[in-house]
């Protein structure tokens, strides 16, 4: 076998509990058509014999280390589940998970978040469901960080009121939660004890911070969420303000509010403000 093929096989034995058990029960038969040399065959047999305890121990260490990473990636979800329940679920996940397809700790945390979705009925545990969705969304944004970090190239459109164009990178998402989920998540990450749940609906902006390139989440108002949806790099600030004017409101007032909001978003690394190019 090639060095890489052997390495893949050993990694799978360590990470896939079902495959490992099959190998421990059936020996080389469980490895299918793996083209092992005599030395590799002997080494594999030793893993079932006197190296077995070491193999199982290494697997536990590996799972433990990945659980540690998970605590950093889904901190509020795990806190809400409690230490015992989250460890039990993580062990169950470990029994089901396969080495293939799980390439990074972030991908694994996402897989675990999906595993939890299958385990818990969101109707019975609304808070857990909301917190898990909140953290999963942040991870999805994080996973996408290398794909689309650059903003749209602005189209050349005629200036109307302002010479500034607002652009939010593709890697963002807006979601509405039934609770004040940002406050709950922050509280769960930093404190212990009981929590009185603030039953206030929140809209959360998930994005990659333009300055630090890290995933971030911020609570935004409904008006801010509407503004963000218009900041696609194709409209200048005047056009955005005009689109957002509600009956009875004065356009210059809305424009001032939009300018302030866009500056605030830029300050938080959620948006770029680019100079507007005049056509012709």
């Amino acid at each position, binding site marked *: 076998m090639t060095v890489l093929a052997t390495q893949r096989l*050993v990694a799978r034995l360590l990470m896939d509990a079902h495959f490992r058990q099959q190998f421990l029960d059936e020996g080389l038969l469980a490895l299918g058509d793996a083209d092992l040399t005599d030395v590799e065959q002997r080494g594999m047999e030793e893993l079932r014999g006197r190296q077995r305890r070491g193999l199982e121990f290494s697997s536990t260490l*590996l799972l433990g*280390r990945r659980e540690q990473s998970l605590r950093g990636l889904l901190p509020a979800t795990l806190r809400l589940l409690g230490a015992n329940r989250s460890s039990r679920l993580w062990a169950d996940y470990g029994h089901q998970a396969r080495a293939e397809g799980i390439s990074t700790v972030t991908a694994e945390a996402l897989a675990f978040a999906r595993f939890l979705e299958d385990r818990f009925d969101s109707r019975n545990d609304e808070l857990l469901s909301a917190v898990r969705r909140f953290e999963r969304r942040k991870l999805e944004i994080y996973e996408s960080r290398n794909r689309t970090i650059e903003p749209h190239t602005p189209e050349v459109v005629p200036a109307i009121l302002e010479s500034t164009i607002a652009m939010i990178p593709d890697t963002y998402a807006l979601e509405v939660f039934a609770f004040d989920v940002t406050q709950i998540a922050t509280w769960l990450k930093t404190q212990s004890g009981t929590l009185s749940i603030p039953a206030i609906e929140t809209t959360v902006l998930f994005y990659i911070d333009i300055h630090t390139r890290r995933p971030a989440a911020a609570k935004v108002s409904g008006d801010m969420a509407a503004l963000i949806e218009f900041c696609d790099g194709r409209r200048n600030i005047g056009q955005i303000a005009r689109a957002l004017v509600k009956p009875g409101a004065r356009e210059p007032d809305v424009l001032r509010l939009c300018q302030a909001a866009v500056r605030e978003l830029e300050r938080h690394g959620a948006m770029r403000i680019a100079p507007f190019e005049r056509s012709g």
Partner: protein
Amino acid sequence: MASHQLMIERLPDCGVGLVYHPEMRNDVSRFRDKIDYLELIADRVLSDLGLQEARFLAGEFRLLFHGLRLSIGSDQLPDTTYVKSLATVVQKFDPHWISDHIALTRVGDIELGRLLPVPFSADSASVICRNVRHIQLAFGCPFLLENIAYYFIAPGTELDEASFITSVLEATNSGMLLDLNNLYVNSVNHGYDPYRFLSALPLQRVIEVHIAGHAWRDEIAVDTHGHAVDPEVWALLEWVCAHARVRAVTLERDQNIPDFSEIVSELDRMRAIWQQGRRLSSS
């Protein structure tokens, strides 16, 4: 490659140091006269915050950098982005050397998140040599390879570990970061004599030594970096310092961090052993 040999031979003495953790920040400054250098986990310097902290520490201490994710045992070239990031760290801080482990942390596109053993075989050695040469070219500073603690022997093993390590060190003209706690737990778990292992190594290539504590779980000795250094490991340090021109002795205490005075007393003991070794080797 000869230039790497020369670089290794000419490496200066660094003395006694400590693997740094942010929670030690005030203590390391308070005990500045007890610490000759700090060893930083290279991955932690890659963030803006980590870089800022490293710059601050560089004002007070000599810095060494220790990598975790080069995965030089993987049958694929080390991750280009990671290598470039570490090369930038080398450029910025100009350390005497940089180190990583003889291990796998990645298989194909799977990040394992932990150091796993490679098979001790000729094929595996040639994979490592290719990767080490690639890294040496990228870093332009001496590269040290560290022995890991492992709890099973990787299938495909056909050599003893000391011969395997020696072949890699000599073929690549690398230095060795000898982890004595790893050696000790391996010798207990796999039933061999650690002093025979040491005698089989090219000791002139041992540049840095790591020492740490371990714990027992289900009759397995586990490299935890969370306990006081064991008397057997102190004895190994005495032996190595008496037989090799060790440039740096580093204490690893990554968890269960005690009152800093306990760390300082271990640093004092390390210094006494290291200085005794220097006297012996110069006489």
